[in-house]
């Protein structure tokens, strides 16, 4: 890790490191599962699809936990992944949560959220209805569907979270591309 390369607002180097670490760890885990169930037909379409879902969910989870709980979208994304895994895998879902989140129970998570709550969450964005009915309103609703946790946000927070989310998504794509290129070389 090169300490001189830290950028100003978006500390990309440490974020990249945390993302790659979490993602590789998850890939190892998925790989071990594949070996464990190798008696079954490894390359059946169902198996391939399930593995694709696991990889995608691991990528999203690594991205969100590399950001931490500082951002509303990362909290919403982690919650969504946990709920999905609880549905898919039952009580075993604790195994799949990336180490960075350190899940100890719901109360701990909410305490962390309360303590790290940023000022942007308390920002006073009034007169939401006039904005919602204006020209930007229906475009913003489309955006809300795409950004995790967007439904509960007002306009200012939504735009702010979107900017950060796009930065993290672009980095995620770049890093995954490098990993895939390296693994296929």
């Amino acid at each position, binding site marked *: *890790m*090169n300490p001189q390369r830290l950028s100003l607002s978006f500390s990309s180097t440490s974020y*990249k490191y945390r993302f*790659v*670490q979490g993602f*590789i760890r998850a*890939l*190892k885990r*998925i*790989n071990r599962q*594949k070996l464990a169930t190798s008696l079954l037909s*490894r*390359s059946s379409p169902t198996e*391939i699809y399930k*593995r*694709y879902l*696991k*990889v*995608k969910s691991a*990528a*999203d989870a690594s991205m969100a936990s590399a950001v931490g709980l500082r951002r509303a979208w990362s909290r919403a994304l982690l919650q969504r992944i946990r709920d999905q895994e609880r549905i898919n895998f039952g009580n075993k879902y604790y195994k799949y949560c990336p180490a960075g989140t350190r899940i100890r129970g719901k109360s701990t998570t909410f305490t962390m959220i309360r303590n790290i709550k*940023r*000022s*942007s969450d308390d*920002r*006073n*964005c*009034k*007169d*939401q209805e*006039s*904005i919602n009915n204006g*020209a*930007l309103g229906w*475009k*913003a609703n*489309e*955006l809300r569907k*795409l*950004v995790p946790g967007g439904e509960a946000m007002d*306009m*200012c927070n939504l*735009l702010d979270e*979107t*900017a950060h*989310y*796009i*930065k993290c*998504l*672009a980095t*995620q*794509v770049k*890093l*995954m591309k*490098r*990993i*895939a290129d*390296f*693994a*296929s070389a």
Partner: protein
Amino acid sequence: MSSRRSRSKQSSGSRITDDQINDLVSKLQQLLPEIRDRRSDKVSAAKVLQETCNYIRSLHREVDDLSERLSELLATSDTAQAAIIRSLLNQ
């Protein structure tokens, strides 16, 4: 962060200013590849939001494709994890 808070405190109790919205919209504009390269200042906020939606959707699609590719690679070979991390961080 603190400057943003004092700015919102001055306008608290009143409407969201257009400046605040335009500020955030222009910040978004800088992140979008198409609009950034086009070198024109006058892009409407609605267009920026539309491009943002499209960009996020295309990024999601890329993540899906890469996940698929990685899962297929997992099926065929093992990944050399430590070597990957080292190579990525040295670039």
